């Protein structure tokens, strides 16, 4: 018989909760109890420290051969608003990142058929020559799969060439929800959950770290979320390659996906999802509240619900904002530090690999 008390006892004793227990938590309305449990799990891992970094996004193209129903960012070639940044434009953004003291470039884009694999290698080399000290976190598993098909190379070979060209780690996007039934409605043309996991496993085995995400708040059930978390936890057991788990709140604003739900995710759902992730993913060090999707207020409150990372300054994010996210385009370093301090936590600037750079 599952009870909240038994889950607390297990999680606080360093044990691992089951899928059924995670589901029990998702179905519970005891928001503060769930939050307090997640906070105590996080407290043992991270104390009062909350990480953030100084990063800049580069969404190098919005042209994409796939048509995911939840996405408001993608365009077909020739469609109005379609763009692909030239190498010079990308270089300019990398230079700006250096000027602003960023330690990370987060580079992701659409699956643009006009861009060759060599273009990607050139992009990395150019970025690294412009910003040699900046860590390049680039290309989701979906892009890696695309590069594999256009180059005819295995994902492992694609990754090792990218790495030679300057790739530092992989972001966690494209995971969405692994359950095939949900993927069928959400992104039928996108790689399967299985493929996403296998590319991540390949990357981890090659020594490349990555993040993991989950897009929630659309057509998926709580059981689908738990299934997603389970597969991440299993892979993490095998590789320990994931740096952080980042739940992404679905932004219904301008997307085509009809979810039958009312509007965006609720604050309660956001906090529960973050907290349950913290409790369930016992082999993840970091749970990130991505303020672009959550809004600053909920992202900050999440620091009391088991979250230990607020992402970064995120200059020029386009994908969430195109889908109607109403958060600002970027936050200042001072703004992030203030959010963390006002939550009673200790801000620590980190690098992409979660090494603490300075206590603020």
């Amino acid at each position, binding site marked *: 018989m599952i009870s909240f008390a038994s889950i607390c006892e297990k999680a606080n004793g360093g044990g691992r909760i089951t899928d059924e227990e995670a589901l029990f938590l998702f179905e519970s*309305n005891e*928001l*503060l109890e769930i*939050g*307090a449990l997640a*906070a105590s799990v996080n407290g043992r891992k991270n104390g009062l420290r909350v990480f953030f970094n100084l990063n800049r996004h580069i969404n190098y193209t919005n042209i994409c051969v796939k048509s995911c129903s939840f996405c408001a960012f993608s365009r077909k070639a020739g469609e109005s608003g379609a763009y692909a940044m030239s190498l010079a434009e990308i270089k300019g953004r990398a230079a700006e990142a250096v000027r602003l003291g960023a330690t990370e470039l987060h580079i992701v884009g659409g699956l643009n058929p006009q861009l060759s694999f060599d273009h990607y290698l050139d992009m990395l080399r150019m970025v690294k020559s412009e910003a040699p000290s900046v860590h390049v976190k680039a290309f989701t598993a979906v892009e890696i799969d695309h590069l594999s098909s256009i180059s005819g190379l295995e994902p492992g070979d694609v990754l090792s060439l990218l790495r030679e060209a300057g790739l530092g780690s992989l972001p966690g996007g494209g995971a969405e929800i692994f359950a095939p039934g949900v993927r069928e409605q959400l992104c039928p043309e996108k790689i399967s959950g299985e493929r996403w996991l296998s590319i991540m496993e390949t990357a981890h085995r090659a020594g490349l770290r990555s993040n993991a995400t989950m897009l929630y708040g659309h057509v998926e059930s709580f059981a689908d979320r738990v299934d997603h978390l389970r597969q991440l936890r299993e892979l993490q057991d095998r590789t320990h390659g994931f740096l952080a788990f980042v739940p992404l709140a679905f932004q219904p604003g301008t997307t085509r996906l009809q979810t039958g739900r*009312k*509007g*965006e995710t*609720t*604050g*309660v*759902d*956001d*906090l529960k999802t973050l907290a349950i992730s913290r409790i369930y993913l016992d082999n993840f060090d970091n749970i990130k509240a991505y303020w672009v999707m*959550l*809004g*600053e*207020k*909920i992202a*900050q*409150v999440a*620091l*009391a*619900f088991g979250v230990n990372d607020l992402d970064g300054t995120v200059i020029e994010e386009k994908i969430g904002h195109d889908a109607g996210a109403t958060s600002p385009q970027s936050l200042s370093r001072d703004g992030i530090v*203030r*959010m963390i301090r*006002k*939550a*009673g936590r200790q801000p620590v600037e980190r690098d992409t690999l979660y090494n603490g750079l300075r206590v603020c």
Partner: protein
Amino acid sequence: MTGFEGANPRFRPKSGNHAGRADTRVCPYEDVRMQNRQRTMIEVIRKKIESDESICRSEALYLLNDADLLALGKLADAIRRSLHPEKEVSFVVDRNVNYTNVCEVKCKFCAFYRDGSAPDAYVLSREEIFGKIDELVEQGGTQLLMQGGLHPDLGIDYFEDLFREIKKRFPTVWNHSLSPPEIIHIAAVSRLGVAETLRRLKDAGLDSIPGGGAEILVDEVREAISPEKILWQQWAGVMGEAARLSMPSTATMMFGCRERPEDIVEHLFRIRELQTEGASFTAFIPWTYQPGNTELGGETATGAEYLRIVALSRIVLDNIPNIQASWVTQGAKLAQVALFFGANDLGGTMLEENVVAAAGCSFRMSRDEMIHMIRDAGFRPVQRTTLYAILRRY
């Protein structure tokens, strides 16, 4: 003008013996070691709450400054559950009508006011006002909240005529209008006492008084952010007089501006004391200063700070039945979360809102969204009247 003319002395607030300073008389924890301090303090406070004792100022200040956010939330949530065991969250369908933006007082935190000569200064015509109330009634609304600037030409005759006509045309609409600064202004313009002004407005159809203009009820803070506005005892005096006339009212607090934590605590205790002395507050509504387009500028309070204030309000104001979450200033997400930090009401759907919007903060909310977010939090949505009678359960 004193604000107390004709007021029953029992509503007269005590003189400023607490002004800005925390009362430190009851402080049994001085010797507790730091690492146990938090737990001990929370336990002492929890025991007090469980035995229905009110907490003191120093305990409130501790909760505000030092308590863990979720521990604070749990204390407030327990009180909220015992006051409202039915697992319902209420809201009212209402409309704010801001009859003028011309204001003599020019508070530094306000982005709404205009000079009489400004190109975008306005006074709504009666027909415009009636048109807005028509829309409210069409949408099943029950509450009209008229608030505006302190316009030098609008005296008691204007409001008497307007309110009489509103009652005649819209007998089902509850007229919840004119915060204390407006009442005092109307009294001054018309050379009347506050009691007489309220009595005449009540006769003309004013049903209850919204608690705006309270800001922080500590004069040092008011001096810094709204030097021309009524003092805290004037605000209190209007509310005391309203209660004497059997007019319900609400109380508010705008925080996150220039006040110290001690001032917030003082504000809450002054509200609690006024209620003890006979005030008619149905609800307390804290909201955050919105800095956009204002003279003061700066930052707005963060989400965690807002939740702390909601929770502290619920704990301190044990003699006020309802705590409202402010989706207008916090957005739907955080307002929903506030339902776990002591709030049991989401205020109005606000068909129209202009004052907060002028400061760059414009969230929208439909009745359907309101119902959805309440259900999603595990509560039953209920539509209520201004006085918290339930009109419809969803």
